[in-house]
C-alpha cells in the first residue's frame, strides 16, 4: 500500500472515534442514540479527507502516520470539550478549522521551508517579542502567558516555540562544526570557543530572563529543554547538556525561592494535602483536586460523562480549568489509566514519527528542525501531564490538540505541517 493510502485508511479510525465519542455523550445526556453523532463523525472525516487530499497533491512522500495521529488527538479534544461544556465545543471546532487552515497554508506556501533560514534573526527577534508581549497585558495566576484583547485570548508562547526552534536549528547548522572542532578540552569538559558559544549563552540568558519575565517554570523548561535537545543533536556533546541543565536548575532554584507565586507552586507540589496550603488562595487546592480526580478514575475510569466536574447545586467548578490545562485529569477520571496510557501512546507515536523524519533528513537544518520541533512538542506534553500527575510542579501549559484554546491548536498544526514538510523532502526519491 502506498504511503498516502495508509494515511487515508488511518483517518477512518480517527473519525470513528469521534462518532463513538459523541454517541456516548448523547446516550449519557438524553438516553437515546442520536444520528447527529454520525453527522459529526462524517463532517470530521470530511475535513480530514480534505487535508489528506492536499497532502496527497503537495507532499506525496510525507510521513503517512502523522496526520491520522493528529486527527485522533483533535477528535479526543473536541469530544472531551463537548462533554465538559458544550458551549465551548463550537469554539474548539472553529479552532480546529483555523488550525487546519494554517496547516494547509503552511504546506502550500512553505513548501521549501528552508527559506526560513534566511529570516532566522527576524524570526528569533519576533519570537522573543511574542514571549515578552504578555508582560504588558496582565498576569494569570502570577504568570505572564496570555494576551487578552477584545474578548479573545492569545497565547503567544505557542507560536514563539516554533520560531525559536527554527532559529536554533538554523544557527546551530552553521556553528555546530566550530562548536566541537574549535573546542578545547579541560578536565574532560569540552569548552567551545567563546566567539561561537556566545550566542548560546545569550539563548541561555534569554531562557533565564524568560523564567523571570514570564514567571512560569513549565514553559521555561519546555523552551530550554528544546534548546538543549537541538544543541545535543547538533554537537553530540553530553557535557553541553549537563552544564545547561545545571545552569537551568540554578536559575529555577533562584526563581523558586525569590518569585512568590512560583514558590507557592513548588510548596503546593510538595505538600498538596497540607490544610493551610489547601485553604490558601492560589494554594494546593488545585493539585489536591487533580489527584482526587485521578484516584476517582482508577484503572478503567468512571465512564464517559461520569466525572463530577461541578459542585452539585452550584455552577462552581470542583476541578479548576477542566477544559484547558487540566483536561488530562478529567480524561483520567473518565477513561482511567488505560485511556490515559492510550493518549500518551498517541503522543509518543507522533514523537517517534518526528524523530524518524529527523533521522531520514538529508541536510543538517532539516534534521535539527525536525528534532527540535519534536522535542518541544514532547516536552510540552511532559510539562503539563507531569504537572497534573505531580511529577513536577504544576504550570499552565496546554495539552497539544486536546486542550481548549485556539493558539495552541493552530500553533501545533503549524508544527506538524513543518514536520510533514521535512519528512516529504527526506523521503523524496532521487
Amino acid at each position, binding site marked *: 500500500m502506498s504511503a498516502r493510502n495508509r494515511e487515508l485508511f488511518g483517518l477512518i479510525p480517527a473519525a470513528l472515534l469521534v462518532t463513538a465519542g459523541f454517541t456516548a455523550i448523547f446516550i449519557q445526556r438524553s438516553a437515546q442514540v442520536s444520528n447527529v453523532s454520525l453527522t459529526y463523525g462524517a463532517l470530521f472525516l470530511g475535513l480530514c479527507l480534505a487535508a489528506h487530499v492536499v497532502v496527497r497533491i503537495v507532499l506525496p512522500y510525507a510521513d503517512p502516520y502523522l496526520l491520522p495521529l493528529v486527527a485522533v488527538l483533535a477528535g479526543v479534544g473536541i469530544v472531551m470539550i463537548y462533554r465538559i461544556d458544550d458551549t465551548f465545543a463550537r469554539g474548539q471546532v472553529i479552532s480546529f478549522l483555523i488550525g487546519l487552515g494554517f496547516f494547509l497554508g503552511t504546506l502550500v506556501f512553505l513548501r521549501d521551508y528552508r527559506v526560513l533560514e534566511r529570516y532566522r534573526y527576524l524570526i528569533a527577534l519576533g519570537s522573543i517579542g511574542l514571549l515578552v508581549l504578555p508582560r504588558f497585558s496582565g498576569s494569570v495566576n502570577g504568570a505572564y502567558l496570555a494576551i487578552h484583547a477584545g474578548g479573545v485570548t492569545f497565547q503567544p508562547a505557542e507560536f514563539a516555540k516554533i520560531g525559536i526552534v527554527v532559529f536554533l536549528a538554523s544557527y546551530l547548522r552553521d556553528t555546530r562544526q566550530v562548536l566541537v572542532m574549535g573546542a578545547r578540552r579541560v578536565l574532560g569538559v569540552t569548552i567551545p570557543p567563546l566567539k561561537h558559544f556566545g550566542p548560546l549563552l545569550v539563548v541561555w540568558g534569554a531562557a533565564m530572563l524568560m523564567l523571570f519575565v514570564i514567571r512560569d517554570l513549565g514553559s521555561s523548561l519546555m523552551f530550554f529543554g528544546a534548546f538543549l535537545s537541538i544543541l545535543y543533536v547538533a554537537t553530540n556533546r553530553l557535557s553541553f547538556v549537563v552544564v545547561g541543565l545545571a545552569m537551568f536548575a540554578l536559575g529555577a532554584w533562584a526563581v523558586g525561592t525569590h518569585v512568590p507565586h512560583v514558590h507557592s507552586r513548588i510548596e503546593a507540589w510538595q505538600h498538596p494535602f497540607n490544610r493551610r496550603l489547601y485553604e490558601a488562595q492560589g494554594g494546593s487546592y488545585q493539585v489536591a483536586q487533580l489527584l482526587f480526580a485521578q484516584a476517582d478514575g482508577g484503572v478503567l475510569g468512571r465512564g464517559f460523562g461520569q466525572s463530577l466536574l461541578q459542585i452539585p447545586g452550584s455552577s462552581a467548578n470542583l476541578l479548576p480549568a477542566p477544559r484547558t490545562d487540566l483536561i488530562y485529569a478529567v480524561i*483520567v477520571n473518565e477513561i482511567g489509566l488505560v485511556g490515559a496510557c492510550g493518549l500518551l501512546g498517541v503522543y509518543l507515536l507522533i514523537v517517534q514519527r518526528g524523530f524518524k523524519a529527523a533521522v531520514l533528513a538529508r541536510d543538517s537544518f532539516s534534521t535539527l528542525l525536525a528534532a527540535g520541533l519534536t522535542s518541544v512538542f514532547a516536552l510540552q506534553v511532559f510539562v503539563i501531564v507531569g504537572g497534573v500527575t505531580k511529577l513536577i510542579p504544576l504550570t499552565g501549559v496546554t495539552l497539544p490538540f486536546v486542550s481548549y484554546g485556539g493558539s495552541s491548536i493552530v500553533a501545533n498544526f503549524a508544527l506538524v505541517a513543518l514536520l510533514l514538510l521535512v519528512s516529504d523532502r527526506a523521503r523524496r526519491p532521487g
Partner: protein
Amino acid sequence: MSGPVRRLFAVIVLMFGALVLFTSRWTVFEAKSLNDNALNRRQLLEQLEIKRGLIRAADGTVLARSVRGRGGVYRRTYPQGDLLSHAIGYWSISYGRAGLERSRNDELAGSGSDLGSIIDQLQGKRRDGDNVDLTLDPNAQRIAINALGGQKGSVVALDPHTGAVKVMASYPQFDPGQIATSYPKLASQPGAPLLNRATQGQYPPGSSFKVLTDVAAIDTGRFSPDSTLNGDSPKTISGVPLSNDGGQSFGDIPLTDALTHSVNTVWAQVGEALGRGTMAKYMERFGFYAKPPLDYPSDQRYASGEYLNGSLLSPTSGRIDVGRMAIGQDKLLVTPLQMAMVAAAVANQGVLVRPHLTARVVDPDGRVRDSVGTSVYHRVMKADTAQKVAQMMSNVVKEGTGTAAALSGIDVAGKTGTAEIQAGVNQVWFIAFAPINDPRVAIAVTVERSSGQGGTVAAPIAKQVMEALLR
C-alpha cells in the same frame, strides 16, 4: 546525527514512562488513600444529587428522609429528632457519616451494582436509594430514654432468637438533623453525646459478669448449681484478700444461692478453679475479644475484654487476675451490647445469634432487595447448661438482688452488677431476659457514675423496657 536523535528519543520514552508511572500511582497504588483523604469530598458531593432512601423503624415510623432543595440538591432530615440518633448516625458534607447512614450507605445511596442499575447508569439516570427498614422499636426506645431519666448510660434490648435489636439507647443523645451546625460543639462536649455508649461505651461489668463465669462452671461439668463452696469473707484471691459486699460471710453455700446473693468470694474461687484458658474459651464464644457482629460501622464497635493501658490483652495473658475477672473486676471492660449478647445466648438455649439493626432493604418500588435473617454466631453452651443458668438467674429476680425487675405474671431471669469506680460512685448494671420459658427479649442496662446499686437503679429501667417490649 542519527545517534544523538535516537538517544534523545530514548530519553523522551523514559520521560513518558515516568508519566505513565505517576498516572498509575494516583489511579492504582495510592487511589484508596486518596479516596479516603479527609479533604476529598468528591464522593459526598456526588451523593448530594442522589435521593437517599428512607430509614424506617420496625413500626414504619420514618427516621430519616431526603428532601429536594435548591438546585436539585438533596437534604437529609430526621423527623424523630434525637430519638435513635446513635443507631441512625448522621450524614454531613462537612463532618462525614456515622451510624447506619454510614454502614448502610451503599444501599441508601442506591449504588448496588445489579444489571438494572448498570442500564440506568448507561442512560445517565441516577437511581434513587433503597429504603432501609430497621428492627428498632421507637416506643420502647422512648421508654428506655425516659427511664434513664437524664443519667448517662445505655440500654440494649435484643430478640434472643433472631438477633433483632429492639432498643439501642445511649444518653446523652444528639439531633442528627442539626449536625451541620452543632457538630463542633457536640464533638468537644464533656458528656460525649456523639459516642454510642451501647457499642462504644467500655465499662467494668461488675457482678453481671458472673453469668458468664456461671455458664463456664456448669458447661464444663466442673460444677453444678448445687455445688457448695465456702463463701466466707475475706478470701485470698491471687495472693490479695477479697471481700464480699459489706464484708458479709455466707459459710458453705450452693452456687445457686451464691448467684442470688452475688457472693464475690465464691465466684472468684470458681474462676480460679476454671483457670484462664477455660474462661478465655467461653468469653470468646460469647464474642469477647472481637468486635461484636452488627451492621454498624466497624470503628463504632468496640471489643470487650481485659484492657491494659487502652489496648486489648490476649485472652490468656499472664497479666489477667482470673479470680477477680470472674466477678467482673480486674481490667475487664465491656460494652452494653456485649452484655446483652451474654443474656441473649443464655435465653436462646445456648446459641448466640448475630445481632442486627436492619430488618430488610427495600427498593423505591417496594421490592425487597435484601432481608436480614437469623444467623448463628456461636453455640456457646449446651442447651442443658442454658436451662440451669436461666433457673439460677430467675432466683436473682425472685428473691435476690434483682427483685426490682420482677414483672407481674412473667418470669424474669436477671443478674445485677455494681462496679465501684470510686467511693460511693458505681457503674451499675442489670442484664436479663424474659419470659424464661420462651424468651422474647434479652436486655442489658447500665448507668454511669451512679450512687445507687445495680438492683436499685438499673433493674427498674430494665423492667420498664421489658414491659414495653412484651406487652
